[in-house]
């Protein structure tokens, strides 16, 4: 009490033992209702889930805690407004002692064991219910982040599954290609462009990756994963429509502009004697936006 100064606490039930106990019981009931709802939510979720029921129980669990706090605050804690003379900043000795006593004995809050324990139960129940959705994060992605369906010898096909022949791709041509057998593959999609062979300035280890000026890069932007589908044929630039990242097709798709920091992964190509384009392996790097395991 001392901590609240000299003002008397009007309109509160403290002192009236019967009313105080009733209020205490009401708070406890609300907290226990919350706890039971949280347990029910956990069970419903565990048994496969039912969205409307889950919503109801989550609402009851949170609402029970909220209502309990409201009743607690209104009925069991001192009500304002308190008028107090300005006093010295330092507490007097008796006040300090009084506060210490309160603290040791359990003051306003810790004194109410029933209320506090039921609150613990309610919060604990909600905590347990919150643990279960972790299961819903699904299985670990494993190697899928660093691998695509591309393998050495797989032909490049269009979205409708037609293998791409060199004679069907004119100079300055653009085709979206997929690994044979995986048309529509999200991480395997690539842009194939054909430029005049002399123009390509390949990286040191990629001298023979672009036969006859055919170059393929992953279509997934290294910034945020949008499809890099815009191609300016005259300046040989691939553009991402989302944030205007620009990649230089002639220089191993190094980023020229925009937020992308890494070049587009390149797909090593070769041409079969029958004139089909085939991959010589997977992309040079994991596709898509950078992630934590990626060097």
């Amino acid at each position, binding site marked *: 009490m001392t901590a609240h100064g000299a003002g008397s606490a009007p309109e509160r039930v403290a002192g009236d033992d019967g009313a105080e106990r009733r209020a205490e019981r009401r708070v406890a009931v609300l907290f226990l209702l919350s706890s039971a709802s949280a347990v029910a939510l956990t069970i419903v979720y565990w048994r496969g889930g039912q969205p409307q029921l889950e919503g109801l129980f989550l609402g009851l669990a949170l609402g029970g805690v909220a209502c309990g706090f409201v009743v607690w605050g209104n009925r069991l804690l001192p009500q304002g407004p308190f008028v107090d003379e300005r006093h010295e900043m330092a507490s007097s000795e008796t006040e300090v002692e009084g506060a210490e006593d309160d603290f040791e004995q359990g003051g306003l809050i810790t004194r109410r064991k029933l209320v506090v324990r039921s609150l613990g139960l309610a919060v604990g129940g909600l905590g347990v219910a919150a643990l279960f959705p972790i299961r819903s994060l699904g299985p670990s992605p494993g190697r899928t982040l660093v691998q695509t369906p591309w393998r050495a010898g797989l032909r490049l096909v269009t979205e409708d599954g*037609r293998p791409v022949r060199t004679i*069907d791709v004119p100079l300055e041509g653009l*085709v*979206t290609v997929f690994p044979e057998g995986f048309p529509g593959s999200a991480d395997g999609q690539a842009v194939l462009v054909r430029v005049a062979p002399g123009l390509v300035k390949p990286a040191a280890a990629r001298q023979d990756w672009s036969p006859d000026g055919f170059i393929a890069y992953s279509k997934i932007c290294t910034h945020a994963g949008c499809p890099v*589908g815009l*191609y300016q*044929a*005259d300046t040989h630039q691939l*553009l991402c*429509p989302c944030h205007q990242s620009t990649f230089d097709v002639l220089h191993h798709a190094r980023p020229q502009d925009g937020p992308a920091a890494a070049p587009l992964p390149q797909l090593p190509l070769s041409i079969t004697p029958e004139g089909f384009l085939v991959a010589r392996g997977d992309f040079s790097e994991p596709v898509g936006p950078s992630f934590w395991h990626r060097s």
Partner: protein
Amino acid sequence: MAGVSAGQPDSTAPRDVRQTFLADCAVCHGAEGNGTSRGPSLIGVGRASVDYQLSTGRMPLAVVGRTNDQEGSPLQPLPNSAAGDSDIVPRRHDPAYTPETIAGLVDYIAGVIGGGGPEIPRVGEGNLAEGGALFRQQCAACHAWAGDGGALLRIEAPALHSATTTQIAEAIRLGPGQMPVFGTAALTDAQMDSVVAYVRYLDQPRDRGGQRLWHLGPFAEGAVALVALAGLLLFTRWIGERG
């Protein structure tokens, strides 16, 4: 009357066309069509390319009495002394010549200057639904989902609404300007017909499902959400003032 004019084009057209070529084209492309410092060579560009550039009014670059980037009314070829600047990006205008003159120039450049190159494509019926799917996969990135065009680097992809069937097919197979070429690997002839049909449809689309909102696409829904959000803000403020 038909009898009178029937024989005339054969005897007079080549000479007229040659004069037109020398007056309007040769100043940049050279009298032999092999290019100058002002303009590229025309040898082997093919009939489709000449037809596309002339029928969309992108060529000739020069105009009389107004700047080049005003789109719309017909172009008037300039006298040689005031030829267009080769740095100007060609844009769509009404053609400077009649269809007969354009056909004559196409024949002249393909035949006299030098052959080869793609022929003017023939466009078949096409399947609208398939064309829509292909358009969204291969064209919409630059030309936008409703064919209104969009921004690229320092240039923009043009709107497609005024393009004719033949011009659309020519653009697909030629890749004029910064546009890449879509060969038969990207679009088979039948698929090209479908895309052309869909681009023509985009000029007068049937808007089902309410207000078209200027074909802004997903942005339109975002705009509606913003209006709703503003209303919500006012409502919140009203509640706050009551308390």
